[in-house]
């Protein structure tokens, strides 16, 4: 028997609001760290020096090739066992943040690399011919152009990250999923509280969907005018596959 009153009771409770907050900040910090790690890995990976590219390839191979859940368990339960000195440093929070950041770094590395290689090689040559060194050319010329290619998949990565944080429930971190599990089992209302958790995940990913499409429009390379912007897909179209399509609107107006 599904009880809506329990859903209602927990929906805007301080318990779930603070759990949602935990989910959000774990996701944001992990994503930011993941992007930074990914950026350095991508630069190493695209280097012509093997002593830089090989470690990066190895890192990416390890982290993309094994389950995040296993990495998390290894870090939280495995490492302190083998290296007792780590015990004071490995808390549920640090373990979750480290595992998510490092794992995300490997995926971001491939995304950033794809962005860098998408930039016309002539751009690097032009920068060099003006006397720029590699690091300056990367920062001022290549990465700003690569960003256009990087940002859309980066947005999807963060959408994933918001949901991936639920894995931290296995080490007892009170984010949305673990909160629903613990309080659900206490009151025998598993289903209801998981529905509440799902509601919060949807709120977070939907809000992010808005922000993502705003960012993508803002950094469009062609600096589209307002009328051209209207011709792009609406956010409902992007997020859920239905809703108004700007080009159809533009068509009727004509």
């Amino acid at each position, binding site marked *: 028997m599904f009880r809506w009153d329990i859903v209602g009771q927990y929906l805007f409770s301080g318990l779930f609001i603070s759990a949602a907050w935990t989910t959000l900040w774990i996701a944001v910090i992990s994503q930011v760290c993941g992007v930074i790690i990914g950026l350095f890995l991508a630069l190493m990976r695209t280097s012509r020096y093997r002593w830089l590219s090989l470690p990066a390839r190895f890192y990416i191979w390890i982290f993309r090739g094994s389950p995040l859940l296993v990495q998390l368990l290894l870090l939280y339960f495995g490492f302190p066992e083998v290296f007792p000195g780590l015990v004071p440093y490995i808390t549920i929070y640090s373990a979750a943040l480290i595992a998510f950041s490092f794992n995300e770094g490997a995926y971001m590395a491939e995304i950033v690399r794809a962005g860098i290689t998408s930039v016309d090689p002539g751009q690097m040559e*032009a920068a060099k011919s*003006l006397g720029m060194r590699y690091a300056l050319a990367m920062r001022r010329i290549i990465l700003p152009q690569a960003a256009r290619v990087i940002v859309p998949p980066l947005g999807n990565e963060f959408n994933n990250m918001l949901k991936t944080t639920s894995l931290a429930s296995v080490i007892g971190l009170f984010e949305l999923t673990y909160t629903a599990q613990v309080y659900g089992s206490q009151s025998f209302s598993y289903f209801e509280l998981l529905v509440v958790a799902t509601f919060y995940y949807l709120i977070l990913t939907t809000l992010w969907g808005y922000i993502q499409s705003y960012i993508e429009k803002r950094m469009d390379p062609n600096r589209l005018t307002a009328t051209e912007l209207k011709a792009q897909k609406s956010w409902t179209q992007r997020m859920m596959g239905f809703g108004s399509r700007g080009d159809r609107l533009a068509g009727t107006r004509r």
Partner: protein
Amino acid sequence: MINMEKQRTNGIEMLRAEKIVKHFGNLTVLDGIDLSVQRGQVVVIIGPSGSGKTTLLRCINHLEKIDSGRIYIEGEMIGYREVNSKLVEDREATIARIRSQIGFVFQRFNLFPHMTALENVIEAPIHVLHQPKAEVKERAVALLEKVGLADKADAYPHKLSGGQQQRVAIARALAMNPKLMLFDEATSALDPELVGEVLKVMDQLAKEGMTMIVVTHEMGFAREVADEVIFMDHAVIVEEGTPEQIFDNPQHERTRAFLSMIL
């Protein structure tokens, strides 16, 4: 020899290349090229595609490594230093410093698409030479005016025609106050009606005394502007001389064959 006279009167040697050899895999693209360019001289390199012209130009500012030989800019070797009579590639900072004195104009413009015309021009003087922004901006506006694009300063490259983009690219190179300008088929990617506006800028530069090495298929430009014309074929310099010597009285069969095909 008219050329020898001119070289002696000019005095200062801007570029000296000695026995440049460059391979791409099994293919020899430059097979012992010797070249000397005096300050203020305009040297035009012509020749069929695949003859090594572009590669030679790219070697001069070390966008390509060379397999052997020496290249000097005002007496300073570029790209390498000699250690126990062996060539070792220079530090990045050294190469960048020498490159900053050589302007390079690409066939495909290679403007920075995320920056306006003005931002393209001021980028390197500010971030490479660390010159004050206001001063650089002033100079950049003057340069854009010089290439006839004062009104396009705030336009992004994709809003400009090919000819306009190439003129911005020339202004961008000039903003570094280069000692030497290299033009790599600067008009080859342009629609025919846009070639003239770029050649005009190059012609004006030559008249102002800029030292230039120009790879081009524009024989009219070569004849009018060049102090010296070099004909390259199959990785070697076949013939060099004044425009009159090369175009009116070519000595080599290959030069004659090439010119009869192109003129």
